[in-house]
């Protein structure tokens, strides 16, 4: 028995025999040829055949795993038709009178090593692509279509150094129980594929998995990021139990995900989605989201070199808000600065960007940035349930200032005769401790709160969440943060306002009973977490959640709170 740690890339637990995916080396010998023209004709035909296979691979992969994993085959096709590559192969065949296989292999290796030599993750991945497409073309030249992938004929866990797109497209996915690879990170081809298929995966497990032999008994724990090689009977029984439990809970959760989130004793809350752009609409609907609790507007501003126009923003916000009809969609105004930089927005360097001019502080300084967004939101909210939310509010004055710009925009639009949402709910993020402390005052000037636990934790604990040495302080279940959350909810409820939470904590299964017990009205999370959250809320009572929250708030550390919840609410354990 041996345990190897890697990066958890896709959830769940897989148990089964190892299928070791060895890249069979193609043996290419250099031979002399007499007729270069005939040789180059063979090359042309092989490229054509390869191109057709790549088109097919694109379609299959797009259907099975989505467009992101599929795009790579289009890039490979361009590489194979590259004039420099094709030209160099042609020259060598004509001048040296050697076979095209040998000329192609050597030429493409030169390009691959050049790209690999540049210290850049993206270019290294392209080196793998050149080798992959070369190998495919060589197989077409040699008429050798054996692939290790085609010998997978029974359920197994795929073990590999790394997997190329061509390797995985040929795998019969119905036999793939899980993946573990020595190389790669959470954005590698294998990781994207596994998540697309909903199969457990651990990647980047390193040398430790090289000793795995075909047929070895394996467990891939995609929750913990561990691979267990030849587990003993007791471990296997434990993992089987966890797997069975996980699958049962997953099935239960998916079955109820379109039902409302009501506790056993009839208390109902909203479970909504965090999304970043139009691509998030479908996953949110499928997961049973009752609206959008956080639409990050940054997506429109990134990866470009000029500001998106009001019209462009309007179209985008409107298409998302319309897609949810009467269900609420909460648009958060531009949240940049801090660690989120936009090259074309001129921001002066700051010693402490997290404490500097970010989010509404920046927007209030730059009306040319802020007003088009607010105008677009007011127009987009006509005929649907779009709401606006402002990040990084520290005081009542902040709210009055943004409200005054919003009113200016409203007046302008009315004068222009534009359709606009005359009544649009306006809320704020509670993510600065001062806003939590002043929640009673702030509740008088807004319609709702949404707690941003990521920032609230780092500002409360004085711990930078991007600094690994103190990140656990900022990301943990801190009694101080829970107490602030309680203050915010109590203050809002006294003024008849509702409170949501859109930080990572809303989707954390251990936090849900406490947040529910504290009276949180809306839980906003990434779509994959929604079925599990709804299942948990539907399986406990509000009365029990209140008691649990009360006890948890008196505990003294992150660890004590986690241990207590696991004991007091056994429904939180998924496997």
């Amino acid at each position, binding site marked *: 028995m041996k345990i190897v740690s890697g990066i958890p890339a896709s959830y769940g637990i897989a148990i089964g025999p190892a299928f070791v995916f060895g890249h069979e080396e193609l043996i290419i010998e250099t031979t002399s040829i007499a007729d270069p023209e005939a040789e180059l004709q063979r090359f042309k035909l092989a490229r054509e055949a390869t191109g057709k296979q790549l088109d097919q691979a694109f379609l299959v992969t797009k259907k099975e795993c989505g467009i992101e994993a599929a795009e790579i085959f289009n890039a490979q096709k361009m590489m194979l038709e590259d*004039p*420099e*590559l094709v030209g160099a192969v042609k020259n060598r065949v004509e001048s040296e009178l050697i076979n095209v296989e040998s000329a192609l292999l050597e030429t493409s290796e030169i390009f691959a090593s050049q790209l690999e030599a540049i210290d850049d993750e993206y270019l290294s991945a392209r080196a793998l692509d*050149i080798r992959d497409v070369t190998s495919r073309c060589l197989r077409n030249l040699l008429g050798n279509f054996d692939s290790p992938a085609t010998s997978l004929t029974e359920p197994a866990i795929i073990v590999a150094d790394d997997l190329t797109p061509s390797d995985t497209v040929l795998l019969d996915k119905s036999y793939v129980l899980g993946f573990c690879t020595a190389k790669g990170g959470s954005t590698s081809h294998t990781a994207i594929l596994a998540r697309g298929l909903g199969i457990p995966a651990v990647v980047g497990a390193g040398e430790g998995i090289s000793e795995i032999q075909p047929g070895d008994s394996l467990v891939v724990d995609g929750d913990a990021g561990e691979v267990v090689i030849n587990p003993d009977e007791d471990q296997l029984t434990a993992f089987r139990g966890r797997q069975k439990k996980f699958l049962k809970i997953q099935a239960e959760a998916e079955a109820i995900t379109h039902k409302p989130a009501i506790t056993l004793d009839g208390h109902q809350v909203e479970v909504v989605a965090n999304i970043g752009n139009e691509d998030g609409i479908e996953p949110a609907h499928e997961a049973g989201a009752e609206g959008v609790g956080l639409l990050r507007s940054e997506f429109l501003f990134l990866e470009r070199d000029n500001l998106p126009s009001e019209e462009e923003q309007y179209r985008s916000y409107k298409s998302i808000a319309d897609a949810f009809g009467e269900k609420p969609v909460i648009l958060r105004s531009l949240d940049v600065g801090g660690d989120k930089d936009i090259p074309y927005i001129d921001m002066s360097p700051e010693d402490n960007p997290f404490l500097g001019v970010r989010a509404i502080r920046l927007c209030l300084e730059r009306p040319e940035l802020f007003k088009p967004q607010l105008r677009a939101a007011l127009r987009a909210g006509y005929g649907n349930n779009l709401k606006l939310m402002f990040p990084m509010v520290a005081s009542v004055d902040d709210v009055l200032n943004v409200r005054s710009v919003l009113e200016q925009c409203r007046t302008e639009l009315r004068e222009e005769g534009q359709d606009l949402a005359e009544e649009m709910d306006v809320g704020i993020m509670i993510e600065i401790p001062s806003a939590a402390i002043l929640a009673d005052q702030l509740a008088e000037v807004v319609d709702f709160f949404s707690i941003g636990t990521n920032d609230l934790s780092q500002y409360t604990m004085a711990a930078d969440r991007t600094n690994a040495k103190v990140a656990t302080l900022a990301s943990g279940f801190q009694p101080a943060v829970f107490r602030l959350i309680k203050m915010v909810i109590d203050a809002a409820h006294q003024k008849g306002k509702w409170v949501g939470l859109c930080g990572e904590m809303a989707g954390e299964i251990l936090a849900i009973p406490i947040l529910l017990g504290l009276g949180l009205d809306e839980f906003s999370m990434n779509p994959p977490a929604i079925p599990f959250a709804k299942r948990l809320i539907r399986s406990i009572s509000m009365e029990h959640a209140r008691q649990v929250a009360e006890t948890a708030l008196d505990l003294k550390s992150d660890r004590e709170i986690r241990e207590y919840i696991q004991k007091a609410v056994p429904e939180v354990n998924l496997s």
Partner: protein
Amino acid sequence: MPEIKLTVNHKVGLHARPASVFVQTAARFNSDIEVTHGDNTVNAKSILAVLTLGAHQGSEIIIKAEGEDAEDALKALEELVNDNFGED
């Protein structure tokens, strides 16, 4: 040989999708087209060569073209780069 000097403003530089559309645009013309970044000059119709240039955001590149449609080619590439590779 006519040439133009441009700055790559795209966030990812002359990589990934911008590199693909750049090469595809160059390939539409019959002229020989070269692109230079720093000390390296390569065939603008070759994706592999263009990738090895390592032109990041803010890099200055020089494009030269020779042939009957050289002017049109330079114009098309200039528009593409200045239009941020069609991502607006």
